[in-house]
């Protein structure tokens, strides 16, 4: 039992499993390999965005601009590949650098201009979206707008691997093919989790979010930590942009519109505390896929899309309420410890 308690996001994982089992019984075609394949490819980029979003929330902020950064990264790739015929292996890293820089600018606005994270990223959300329209190769060269990206380095991201065939398990059970985007997500999640729990750089995010003043007094460069949090968020948005461009073989100006809200929801459901200082990189991934199975399961059961949105909202409210309850409980315990009770 004590071993179970050490598993992070245990309640969330249990909820995930119970819901999956429920839908396996009651949602037609939910337990098919093709459905799992859809879930993995359809939500991998959302989960990456949620991991990225968890960093600003961890330092008591929020990043509303990631949807626009997704569009910016995607349009950079489109322009480089379609207009300047830059090969994909150069275009993708360049787009990642731009996305990372866009995130860092958010952090700099918050740290140096002392803007509220909500206001700073709301402003940059509009500014980056405007920039996307300004640099859009589809607007500058409309004839390119109806041509797909064929660069093999980029289209290769939308690859699927037959794990069942390779391991011989497909003789026993029909396994889904694993999309490369999901493997990228696993790599991001593992790297991020190792960084958060085993490096000083990673631990600084939680310490800064938990108590910024104490972190500063402890010698942590909180300004650099906050900027890094937003830069990581931007970087993850860049990764999501690459996955989306590979999936769609193009970039659109409206790409990523509203995606920030889904990523925030996934992060919060995944246990990233809105009070800052708490969370890990596994929770947001589970949160993203939880949203996925709820929406898929309900739709397969024939529940209207509007009802689904209401239910998703209710689950989010539940997660936020739970977070508030837990933070009050933690504060009570801390006070009890301080008073020696």
């Amino acid at each position, binding site marked *: 039992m004590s071993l179970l308690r050490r598993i992070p996001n245990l309640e969330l994982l249990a909820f995930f499993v119970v819901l999956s089992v429920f839908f396996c019984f009651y949602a037609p*075609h939910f337990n098919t390999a093709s459905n799992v394949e859809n879930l993995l490819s359809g939500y991998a980029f959302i989960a990456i965005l949620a991991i990225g979003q968890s960093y600003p929330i961890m330092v008591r902020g929020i990043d509303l601009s990631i949807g626009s950064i997704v569009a910016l990264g995607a349009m950079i790739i489109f322009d480089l590949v379609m207009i300047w015929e830059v090969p994909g292996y150069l275009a993708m890293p360049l787009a990642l650098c731009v996305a990372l820089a866009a995130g860092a600018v958010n952090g700099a606005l918050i740290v140096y201009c002392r803007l509220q994270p909500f206001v700073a990223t709301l402003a940059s959300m509009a500014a980056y979206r405007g920039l996307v329209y300004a640099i859009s190769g589809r607007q500058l060269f409309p004839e390119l707008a*109806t041509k797909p990206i064929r660069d093999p380095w980029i289209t290769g991201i939308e690859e699927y691997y037959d794990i069942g065939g390779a391991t011989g398990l497909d003789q026993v059970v029909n396994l889904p093919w694993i999309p490369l985007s999901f493997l990228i997500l696993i790599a991001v999640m593992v790297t991020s989790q190792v960084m958060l729990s085993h490096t000083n750089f990673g631990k600084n995010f939680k310490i800064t979010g938990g108590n910024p003043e104490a972190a500063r007094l402890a010698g942590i460069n909180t300004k650099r930590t906050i900027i890094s949090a937003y830069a990581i968020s931007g970087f993850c948005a860049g990764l999501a942009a690459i996955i989306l461009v590979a999936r769609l073989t*193009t970039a659109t100006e409206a790409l990523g519109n509203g995606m920030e809200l889904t990523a*925030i929801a996934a992060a919060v459901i995944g246990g990233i505390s809105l009070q800052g200082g708490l969370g890990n990189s596994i929770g947001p991934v589970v949160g993203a896929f939880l949203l996925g199975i709820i929406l898929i399961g309900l739709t397969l059961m024939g529940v209207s899309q509007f009802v689904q949105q209401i239910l998703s909202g209710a689950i*989010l409210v539940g997660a936020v309420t739970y977070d508030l309850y837990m933070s009050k409980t933690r504060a009570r315990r801390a006070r009890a410890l301080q008073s020696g009770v």
Partner: protein
Amino acid sequence: MSDKKEVLGDSQRRSFLKGVALGSAALGAGLVSPSMPVAGLGQQGVARAADGRYKMAFIQWQPHTVPAAWSNGIKEVLDTQNNIDYQLLDGQNKVEVQVSLMDTLINEGANVIFLQPIDSVALGPSIKKARRRGISVITLNIDAAEEHAAHVEMNHYFGAMDIAKEMGNRMGGKGKVAILNAPPGIIIRDQRTNGFIDGMKEHHPNIEIAADQVADWSRKKAQDVLFNILTAQPDITGVYGINDSMALGAVDVAKQKGILDKMVIFGNDGERAALESIENGELTGTQYTDVYQQGRFAGSVASVLASGGVSAKSFEQQGKLLMPYTIATAENVSSIQPAQRW
């Protein structure tokens, strides 16, 4: 103590701001809904489900009068077949949502997918995947860059040429025109724009196209865009909105500026609001297409393909059907019957 209160206050303010963002996330969570009910389908694209019924779905761009009317037309035909389950799905104006919906329908083995693609290229990989599974995709109005079973569209290019001709006649063959356009990336945009430009060149070479700006298909955006255009170029006397919503936005601006009687404004589509505006002497004209009929044609094609067991793999090239149209103006708008208005 006061410091503590301030810190608490800051924290509460932050929480409030986050709460505002998160409140919207309730809707955002639903923005990536990747699937729709297609229960009871077999795994093969052209095969009927075990209960002998066919499954078809229409993935619209977003709720709007045009796809709603198409859907009514499609449903009218499919309902009479008695063995087809049909559903209208919402793409929520997001390519990634449309792609996810396509993926789900493909994997669940729908027989025919009607599609109004948000982007002609972005849906290409999904259409290709459907074809590999033998599922027929029928696009409505907006063609896709990837070949598919069939495309049923309004006559965008030649209709726009006729609009240019009629508009030029009403402008006396001279003057300046602004185009309120759609964002690039959709073939319909090119067809409706190029048809208009070519029509002007052919019939009214003295009319100058002085502005061509994106107004995102939106009445509100069109108001803002045209307001700016007219501020910079007040001598513009003609406006062509490549859909009716944008043209009606132009009417709003002209009324506001008190120059409606000097303006010649044409739209495209022929929706009910546009026809009423023409009857009220506001909008000059529009290209009217019977969209119910367009839906019926698409539904008929789908019914034939599914009941005939025709696999999308067997098509050598994409079929195309252009809809008949009328350039509706004050002189002939009354001939469009109430049942034909959408």
